[in-house]
């Protein structure tokens, strides 16, 4: 590997860091570069829908796995699907929905690869029922620097270190997952306005058993009386046999970086109020295709450019159940006071089901996620204050969304992180790992 031209166009979804990378893009497993062939370090990446620096390996090699994207087999009886790691959830659904199968769980965008979904052990709106993506993974192929490609089955230490292992245990080549049956591509969605965080928790509690999917949008911009109001959404699959996959058209494109000036507190406040009213006026129960329900932002390509050239941070934490109500309230209060809250804040409860991943983010409790335009020191100091609330409540942050948490916060939040360190491949690293594994 002599050809060391660096390029600057490989960023993460948040686009805060623009580091030079030497990018390798294999199309077949046999053309994946050998990890021992270079002095520099490697990092496998997928669609780079992670927000922070877990997909950045400054001045070293990135292995873009999106070109390794073939289906191997599908069993119509059991729903077991075997694909290359670069296959996207988009491609899986386009294939599986007409046949009556869906992903056991899905994150809020379908433009992610199976490899990326596994390496972050992603979660979805049905976490309280289905657990994380890793719960549906049976096995995967892994290439490490210390031996030939291997098959990793559920249960072993390497399986558990790789689920949520941030790509650090090796290159995932292919993944075998279990799909679940659906009888329609549509869901019945019920929307309920709630006035405060206590009401949110009551709704979540009452809905968990009866609804497969629950999520809520919470207003983080308005202080005072409006604080903590939001829209709760709960949904179950229809059973009407309409198995129509999502369309291929990408819809609107965000063609340029919006100046951050346009995104100041006022705009955000206006947007939130508008959104709230719109949601309230709509019918309480609505039949909706899975695409707008699961993937509301996927219809605007490159929407991250709305946050301007300096990029954005996302902040996503999970708080254990016993402290959830107070901590979420404190977080919202702090964010509203800053006036820097984002278009969308998502609040959801997680269930108790675990995938076994030693660095999987979710645990039983509540998770809050929102975006901040990058205003440098101002944003960093606000997030540091939020960190304090999260830490005091026994919570932790989601590495897929993070680009700045301290080593101390990471190590305290993920007591099993040493297990990952033991099984990490020595030739693989990321900027994220360099930062959080510091002792």
């Amino acid at each position: 590997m002599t050809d060391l031209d660096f390029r600057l166009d490989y960023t993460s979804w948040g686009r805060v860091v623009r580091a030079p990378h030497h990018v390798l893009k294999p199309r077949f497993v046999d053309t994946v570069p050998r990890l021992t062939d270079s002095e520099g370090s490697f990092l496998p990446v997928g669609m780079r829908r992670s927000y922070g620096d877990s997909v950045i390996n400054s001045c070293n090699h990135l292995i873009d796995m999106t070109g390794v994207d073939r289906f191997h087999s599908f069993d119509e009886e059991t729903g077991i699907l075997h694909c290359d790691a670069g296959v996207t959830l988009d491609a899986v659904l386009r294939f599986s929905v007409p046949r009556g199968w869906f992903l056991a769980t899905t994150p809020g965008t379908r433009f992610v690869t199976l490899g990326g979904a596994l390496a972050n052990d992603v979660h979805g709106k049905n976490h309280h029922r289905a657990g994380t993506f890793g719960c549906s993974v049976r096995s995967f192929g892994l290439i490490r620097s210390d031996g030939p490609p291997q098959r990793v089955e559920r249960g072993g230490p390497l399986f558990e270190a790789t689920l949520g292992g941030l790509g650090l245990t090796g290159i995932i080549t292919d993944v075998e997952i279990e799909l679940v049956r659906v009888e329609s591509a549509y869901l019945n969605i019920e929307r309920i306005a709630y006035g405060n965080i206590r009401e949110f928790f009551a709704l979540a509690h009452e809905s968990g058993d009866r609804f497969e999917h629950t999520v809520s949008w919470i207003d983080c911009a308005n202080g005072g009386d409006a604080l903590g109001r939001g829209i709760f959404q709960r949904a179950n699959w229809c059973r009407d046999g309409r198995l129509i996959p999502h369309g291929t058209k990408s819809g609107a494109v965000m063609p340029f970086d919006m100046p951050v000036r346009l995104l100041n507190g006022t705009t955000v406040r206006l947007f939130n109020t508008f959104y709230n009213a719109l949601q309230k006026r709509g019918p309480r129960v609505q039949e909706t295709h899975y695409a707008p329900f699961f993937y509301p932002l996927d219809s605007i390509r490159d929407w991250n450019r709305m946050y301007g050239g300096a990029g954005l941070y996302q902040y996503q934490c999970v708080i254990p159940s016993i402290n959830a109500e107070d901590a979420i309230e404190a977080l919202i209060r702090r964010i509203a006071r800053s006036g820097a809250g984002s278009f969308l804040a998502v609040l959801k409860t997680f269930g108790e089901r675990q995938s076994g991943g030693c660095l999987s983010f979710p645990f039983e409790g509540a998770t809050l996620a929102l975006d901040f335009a990058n205003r440098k020191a101002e944003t960093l100091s606000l997030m540091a204050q939020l960190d304090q609330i999260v830490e005091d409540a026994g919570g932790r942050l989601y590495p897929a969304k993070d680009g700045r948490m301290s080593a101390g916060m990471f190590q305290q939040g993920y007591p099993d992180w040493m297990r990952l360190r033991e099984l990490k491949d020595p030739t693989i690293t990321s900027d994220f790992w360099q930062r959080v594994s510091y002792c």
Partner: protein
Amino acid sequence: MLKRNIIILGALSAIAEETARLYAAKGANLVLAGRNEERLNQLAADLKIRGAAQCDVVAMDLSHEELVASTFAEMTSALNGKADGVYLFYGLLGDQRQEEGDITAALRNINVNFTSAAAWCLAAANQLERQASGVLIAVSSVAGDRGRQSNYIYGAGKAGLTVLVQGIAHRLAPKGARAVVAKLGFVDTPMTAHIAKKGLLWAKPAAVAARLVAAAEKPSLPVVYVPGFWRVIMTIICIVPAKIFHKTKL
């Protein structure tokens, strides 16, 4: 699009694979030819899951022109004697500087891009003429429009291919069959992985594949640029006087 019988020469090319996926989704019968059998089998398994009714694999070095006539006959008989589409994708960019010093390597380049490709195109033309139906789509390059110091050996092969297929299109027109030669601009594929990327001029393989399939399935001119704006760019490049052109490093 109806269910088609399609032969793909150079199926392991990135653009070829995207093209094959479009046909697979419509339940086509496919014959995939390329060099690496293991990779071709991976493609075949994938394309069957994506909907291809049949997917045969022919592993061979396509530049062996002495094998062309017999192999092409086997390919068509695998499709019950009828080919609705024959796509020629394989090509070799080569290392121009090295080929200038090593004439055998230069001739090898021309053999891949032109001589052997001509053999396949002529075999396809004979078949389509007999059938009085079907279309040949050959992938050429804007590099064949004007000889430039950086890639004229490759360009010469592609220029030859363009004229050959243009002629075949003329020959087939009264017979109910068609031929189209597509001159591609920059496409983001392994062939161009070493070139620093990627401005507005760079197309994605999937978008190029969609254009090629449109040219095969709908009425089309015999010579097309993909993407279309390259017609304008190449018209300008071709009219620049040599005096000025020779001062550039294009």
